[in-house]
């Protein structure tokens, strides 16, 4: 009984929501990239760039500047992936893996340059916390509705905007067409390269923002390795969410929950190392399709060449 009340404790839910945000932002980015037909394994690296530039921007200009810097860095990093995979048609997995390696080195190098040490930045302050007007008056929901980061609200809003864009707008339709059948989209006059570039750049902006959230609201500074593989967990969340933003939100919430649970070391009598890997084990289980089968966009991961049979 005690365990049950611990598992559904409001403070735990609040912490789960906070931990869901970086995963869902990156997962939303992954949705845009893969809907356009480009696998972005480099999300982890982009998130690392986001944590670093988020911290630096906040240090010099406050959290808003931090988010802006992280998004810019994310877009710039994603642009490399887009150039290499879309224009030069290099294998998307290779490019992503190399980007992740590059990000680790770059973050260490820049951190040494700015702060003299390789692995962490000075501490920073976050956004002023906000409360949700109506929900905060419901007694049971207080921990969830008060003192939260505005970025949480932005993230949730972005999920629904993302869903709307993909389903309802011309851009979303074109992006999905390019991910399903680029040759057909091409004959209808859709610029395949442009759409794919946009998808990847959007994923960079969102993964950068995810990194900024981690550094600004979660870590209060940049710390090497603070992403802890969340870029990959986000990819799993996207798959589990069936390549849709709202699906990705649900899946991310599941990961966020296990993440939060893993922080509750004391209540469960298990070595903490094993609780720490709970989100990673859940990721494997989800990918292994123990929960549901999903279908990726047909042209996902396939480079497109105009005028050549694939």
């Amino acid at each position: 009984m005690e365990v049950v009340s611990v598992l559904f404790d409001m403070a735990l839910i609040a912490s789960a929501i906070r931990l869901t945000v970086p995963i869902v932002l990156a997962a939303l980015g992954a949705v845009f990239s893969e809907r356009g037909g480009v696998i972005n394994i480099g999300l982890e690296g982009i998130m690392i760039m986001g944590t670093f530039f988020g911290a630096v921007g906040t240090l010099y200009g406050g959290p808003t500047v931090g988010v802006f810097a992280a998004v810019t860095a994310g877009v710039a990093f994603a642009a490399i992936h887009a150039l290499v995979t879309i224009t030069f048609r290099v294998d998307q997995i290779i490019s992503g893996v190399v980007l992740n390696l590059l990000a680790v080195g770059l973050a260490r190098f820049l951190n040494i340059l700015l702060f003299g040490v390789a692995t962490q930045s000075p501490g920073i302050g976050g956004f002023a916390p906000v409360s949700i007007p109506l929900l905060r008056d419901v007694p049971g929901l207080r921990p969830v509705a008060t003192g939260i980061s505005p970025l949480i609200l932005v993230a949730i809003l972005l999920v629904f905007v993302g869903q709307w864009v993909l389903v309802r707008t011309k851009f979303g339709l074109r992006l999905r067409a390019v991910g399903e059948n680029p040759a057909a989209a091409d004959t209808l006059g859709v610029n395949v390269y442009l759409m794919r570039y946009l998808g990847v750049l959007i994923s960079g902006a969102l993964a950068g923002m995810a990194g900024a959230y981690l550094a600004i609201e979660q870590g209060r500074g940049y710390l090497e390795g603070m992403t802890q593989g969340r870029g990959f967990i986000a990819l799993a969340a996207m798959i589990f969410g069936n390549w849709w933003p709202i699906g990705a939100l649900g899946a991310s919430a599941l990961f966020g929950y296990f993440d939060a649970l893993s922080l509750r070391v004391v209540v469960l009598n298990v070595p903490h190392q094993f609780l720490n890997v709970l989100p990673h084990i859940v990721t494997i289980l989800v990918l292994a399709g123990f929960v549901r089968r999903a279908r990726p966009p047909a042209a996902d991961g396939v480079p497109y060449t105009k005028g050549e049979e694939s």
Partner: protein
Amino acid sequence: MSARLWLLQLSTPLLAILFGALVSSAIILAIGKNPLDVYTLMIRFNVTRADSIASILFKTTPLILAGLAVALSFRAALWNIGVEGQYYIGALCAAVVAFGVKGLPAVVHLPLTMAAAVIGGMAWALVPIALKLRRGAHEVITTIMMNHIAAATILYFLTDVLRDPTQVGTPRVRTPIFEPTARIPSMRGVLDAIGFQIPGYSSLNWLLPVGVALAIALYLLLSRTRFGYEVRAMALNPDAAEAGGIRIGRVQFTMFMLSGAVAGLVGLNDVLGFFGYLDIDFPKGLGFLGISIALLAKNNPLGVIPSALLIAFLDRGAQGVQVFAGVPREVITILQAVIILAIVVAYELLTRYVRNVRKREAGRVVAAAGPVLEPGG
């Protein structure tokens, strides 16, 4: 024509390295240092100091193994990003056998220890490949998750289960010292005998020739055997291979397990060949370097040897420029990544160019042959 293509093929890695050097020069200039001075220092530090050469060779051993492990999976169009975790578990299994089993002669104990490492690596590789073949889970993400789980597992065993009781109370978190019979012998004896005495050479151990021999053996396996043919056929066109009677799942499974087996050996150079215990600070990141090496080598087992040497050379040089020029060694990490990116782009462009040239030539042949095919008057 074909001589020109050969030349192109050879010049691609060189061009990519040049491009990497240019990017690094920009970075070095940006931090107010002279790139030429830094490169000169790096090369002098590496080739004129005898202990540098020993150090480069010592670093090369695990890099060859890591590069081979990654290349084996890449050859089969599988992405084993999990070499990192596989070698942690390999080292952990080896350590248990190395200090836990006593009273065996070295000829039995050392092979047993190495076998434990191989089994550990394969066990860790089994999960992602089984889930891929059975349930369609993408191995890139599952292997990365397995890396995280491996890191936590090794931490747990080192701190809570296998920690040397005599070290409790000190900050040293390590296993008991291994039995001498489980250690990989130093190459010192042979090097002395042939008169190759350089400072620092005592760390060089017999795993280096083993790694080189393994590279050659795997090259032969992939280029000269029926199995190697099946791997190539499958990588080129899985559907055609399947139609031709090749059992794809089995080939993929075998290659991935081979990859995990080789990965299990990666940590042994330091653990069995140098320290003689498994320490919480044992070298990490070798699996990721293995990815760079496999890409540099275009997944050719023989190409892995010079690629590993290059990465080891850069790594040692990074130590030099950090100490003597005050340039952070991370510049070298960035350089590595940029070189790899440049190389894959260059390879891709080259392949496309070659394909176009061939197509044009084929077109010319057809055009030349055309009139003959026309029905004669």
